[in-house]
């Protein structure tokens, strides 16, 4: 049963690496922000699955905090590229 979770995490990590192609090569800044947002979501999913694999519930708490903090980071980057931060 553990093999299934490990395989899922491996697939998720491969997807994160694929998304990094867009993060590095994205032609414009909003493209990179979209890729970063996808990486954050996939990382939260991987952390939740790692909590099952290692049987450490603290990993899920880390995933919650990571989701909320990455949301704040995304909002700040969006404000910055929209030119809405105070001068």
């Amino acid at each position, binding site marked *: 049963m553990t093999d299934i979770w490990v395989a899922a995490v491996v697939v998720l990590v491969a997807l994160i690496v694929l998304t990094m192609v867009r993060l590095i090569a994205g032609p414009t800044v909003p493209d990179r922000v979209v890729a970063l947002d996808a990486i954050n979501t996939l990382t939260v999913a991987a952390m939740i699955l790692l909590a099952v694999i290692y049987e450490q519930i603290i990993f899920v708490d880390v995933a919650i905090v990571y*989701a909320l903090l990455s949301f704040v980071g995304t909002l700040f980057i969006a404000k910055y590229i929209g030119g809405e931060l105070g001068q």
Partner: protein
Amino acid sequence: MIADTIILVCIAIGLVFNTLGVIGILRFPDVYTRLHAETKTTTFGTIFLSLAVIVYAISRLLSDGDAQFLTLSVHTFVALIALAFTNATGAHAIARAAHRSGQVPSPAVIDRYSEGDA
């Protein structure tokens, strides 16, 4: 064991949708279509991966009676709620910022959003 089947199906759905989202990011032509592909599919896929963990925790709780699996299921549900709400809001903010920074959809003819109060 029916719980194992449900977990397998949920993980398969989650991985398929996450993969579709990443393919969309790599293949679509401009920011708005990439955002469209990425946000919905990765949120949906991650929700199903979390549901797999919740089903696993509940089945272990029912078979073993260990209280830590109740904690695991509740915390995973909190993470799921946080993810679902923040992803939708973040996608909206990114789309607004992309429009404000001067990006237009490539075949666009009419831009009602900038005709308004902007």
